[in-house]
């Protein structure tokens, strides 16, 4: 309750909104099939180039999970002409940042440079994509760095909760059940020739989109792309369709033991829907109401009403196949069950009755209004165009985004909640102190409880 002295002075009214368009862009193909997407943005003399390759982690060969990520990272660790140290030096002397990463659906080599250095940096980027060396020393080093990362994860509750949530969510044969970077056994099994074979199979112009956003014209970008990639011999990687089937159809509780932990990291959710699902928009707005914003139901309940947590939110992880829907929070150990109960109440509530028009307009006017703010930087524009490419979305997707958000109704939200939230299939993961959380969680009657160690091995 607020103090009685709080009044309701008139809020300032907005002025007339100014037009905004997502940056115009062109899409072209080089003769070898490589796609070039260019969004000229002339605000500042800077350019981001993202080379998006159809070589995401779902393409990993079984037993060698982690291959896609290691391959991408090794591209910037040495070319035939330059070893890793020299290659890094050549980029950084130009002030160019270069990063290689993968997600489930694609690999992305992303570079940002001042416009004046772009031609030289662009040539280097071509060298990186075309002539990687996979030197044994660098392969061994990056494998060891991944092993170190896995070791660190065992003592890091947030990352551990995310990782094990996926493991418990998907069935064993799904790539999504295994860490993107691979576990220790898989990483040890990956040899240089596996990486080279993966590169030969998947890094082909027909599976590559070069996205350029920033202070450059489309024609000039094409010249640079032609110079860097034009004589790459044609070819297209085979299509890979991931397996997204859940491990369980019924609720279960998974406690990952971190004795004496002052807090529990909680993840509650189930397998969601793919990015290209026809109900993406209602589901996205529904999630904003449920847990996507600060003033969403879950955060107002867990943080502001109950003071259980510093923050609680929900999200759908959008992938080509069905990624997870998950509610994430961290709560004091002794109220873990109470916090979980409130999450269940909110999931049930949004499925039971229509949200208020006020809640709907908060979510839609936020998503509508914040749209231009999402694309202030060349990096953000390049990332948005990557999404377009990865999910084969139509060119007018961003132009139509705001009208589609505004058109959502409370009935559609209710339907989306009923169809795509599955209370009966929720998996609950708590990384925390079993001595403090197990009995109370049992009392909640959520589902059968298993306790695991930090490697995800059952101990009960």
């Amino acid at each position, binding site marked *: 309750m607020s*103090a009685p002295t*709080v*009044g309701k002075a008139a*809020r300032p009214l*907005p*002025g007339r*909104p*100014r037009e905004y368009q997502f940056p115009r862009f062109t899409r072209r193909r080089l003769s070898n099939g490589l796609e070039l997407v260019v969004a000229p943005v002339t*605000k*500042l*003399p800077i350019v981001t180039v993202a080379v998006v390759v159809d070589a995401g982690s779902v393409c990993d060969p079984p037993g060698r999970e982690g291959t896609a990520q290691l391959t991408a990272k090794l591209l910037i660790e040495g070319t035939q002409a330059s070893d890793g*140290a020299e290659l*890094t*030096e050549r*980029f*950084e002397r*130009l002030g*160019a*940042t270069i990063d290689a990463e993968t997600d489930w659906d694609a690999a992305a080599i992303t570079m940002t440079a*001042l416009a004046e250095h772009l031609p030289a940096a662009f040539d280097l980027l071509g060298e990186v994509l075309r002539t990687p060396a996979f030197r044994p020393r660098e392969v061994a*080093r990056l494998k*060891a*760095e991944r*092993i*170190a990362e896995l*070791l*660190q994860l*065992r*003592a*890091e*509750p947030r990352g551990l909760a995310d990782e094990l949530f996926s493991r418990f969510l998907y069935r064993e044969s799904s790539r999504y059940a295994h860490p993107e970077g691979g576990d220790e056994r898989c990483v040890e099994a990956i040899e240089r020739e596996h990486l080279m074979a993966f590169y030969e199979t998947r890094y082909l112009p027909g599976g590559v989109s070069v996205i350029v956003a920033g202070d450059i014209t489309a024609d000039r970008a094409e010249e640079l792309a032609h110079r860097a990639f034009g004589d790459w011999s044609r070819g297209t990687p085979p299509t890979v369709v991931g397996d997204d089937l859940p491990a369980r159809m019924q609720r279960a509780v998974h406690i*990952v*033991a*971190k*004795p004496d*932990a*002052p*807090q529990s990291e909680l993840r509650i959710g189930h397998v969601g829907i793919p990015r290209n699902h026809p109900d993406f928009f209602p589901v996205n707005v529904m999630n904003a109401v449920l847990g996507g914003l*600060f*003033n969403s139901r879950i955060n*107002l309940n867990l943080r*502001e009403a109950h*003071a259980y*947590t*510093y923050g609680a939110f929900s999200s759908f992880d959008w992938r080509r196949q069905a990624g997870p829907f998950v509610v994430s929070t961290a709560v*004091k150990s002794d109220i873990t069950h109470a916090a979980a109960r409130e999450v269940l109440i909110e999931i049930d509530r949004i499925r039971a009755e229509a949200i208020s028009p006020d809640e709907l307009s*908060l979510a839609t*006017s*936020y998503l*509508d*209004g*914040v*749209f*231009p*703010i999402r694309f202030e*930087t*060349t*990096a953000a524009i390049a990332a948005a165009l990557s999404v377009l490419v990865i999910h084969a979305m139509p060119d007018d997707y961003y132009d139509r985004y705001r009208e589609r958000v505004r058109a959502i109704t409370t009935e559609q939200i209710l339907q989306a909640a009923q169809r795509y939230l599955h209370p009966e299939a929720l998996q609950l993961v708590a990384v925390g102190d*079993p001595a403090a959380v197990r009995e109370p969680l049992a009392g909640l009657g959520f589902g059968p409880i298993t306790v695991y160690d930090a490697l995800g091995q059952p*101990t009960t």
Partner: protein
Amino acid sequence: MRIPIETIRLPNGLFVTLSEDHTAPIVAVNLWYHVGSANERPGRTGFAHLFEHMLFQGSADVEANEHFELIQRAGGTLNGSTWLERTNYFETIPSNQLELAIWLEANRMGRLLPAMTQQKLDTQREVVMNERRWTMDNQPYGSWLEKLPALCFPPEHPFHHSLIGSMEDLAAASLDDVAQFFATYYTPDNAVLSVAGDFESAAALRLIERHFGDIPRGTGRPPLPDMSLPPIFGQWKREVSPDEIMLPRLFLAFRSPAFGTPEYFAASVCGAVLGLRNGSRLRRRLMRERQVAAEATAFTFDLAKGTDLLVVDVTARPGIAAEQLEQEVAYEIDAVLRDGIDAAEVERAVALVQTSFVSSMQQAGERADRLSLFATYFGAPELVNEEVERYQAVTVDDVNRFAHERLGENNRASLLYVPRDDAPGELVGAGVAAEEQ
């Protein structure tokens, strides 16, 4: 690149900076109060940050959490943050909503207290305690931000104590403290308001005068004690911290010149030479060549009062003991002193800093925040336009001079994290399972 800047001081002391940019219909409003954890009194550590939370609990005309609701409904993003020397509040919104953000900030600067209740304080105290658990107590190495300043600044120095605060002090904070802190520090003459993006300066200034103009000036904030310290620690300070971690990690700090001084830029370039991105010395030597580190970076705290800290942060590879990690890092620092840094390393560092700066200036929120920073610490927002030039002016001799003065054994503070004797792997295995059966 240069951004346009206009500066106005209202009669009540509010320092206003404006920077127009009409490329997108976006505007950022950014308010810095010149108060941080350094201004806390004994027994009230963490109060500046707890108070920041209270600023989202409503004001005379705004309900609790309505600030968030109104800004998000307008299509904006917002937050606040607390640091040792300042607290900031910021919104980025569609430009036709500028007045809403200005009104909200003015309402809580002018009329916060009527909305403050014991219940709100109790709730936010719990939220902050959970924040502490989340960022520090239940996070590997999370205590570094508390332990490193405590190691590097003498006990009586305002930068010594915890920013997030002790549980005990958080529990002791009262509504009276809220009222006093507000009256003392949240006054127009102790604040900078920056607006960057799509607006007309004259119109924005009218809005600012309308909503902030009648907020009375404060009675003056109590002066901070003398913040100056000798340029070096005078010894190698050491703390070893056993923690629930898998790999040793070293924070090696050097007392360094205060943010914004000419010598600061040499220190900052030295930090970039040592730890900015993959071509930096520590990554090249310790990760690529020696393969004793899993991660390496370097940064400055950017403290503008007294002295700053330059910090090298290196995590061991599995199998590398904490003592070896410390020796390896020290060897590289000694190599800098012995052989010097070369011109190519300085060029690389400055080129990356420049790209990063231009990249950040694409965002209205970053522009506004940077303007507020230079206005708050130096009364000179135009310094934002000199930043790149000041980095470019740093010579290799400047960096080596800095290294000789500040990187020696008489100016080091090691905070070394070591895994507790019983490996966490064993802890989470057998012991717990037995108990659970």
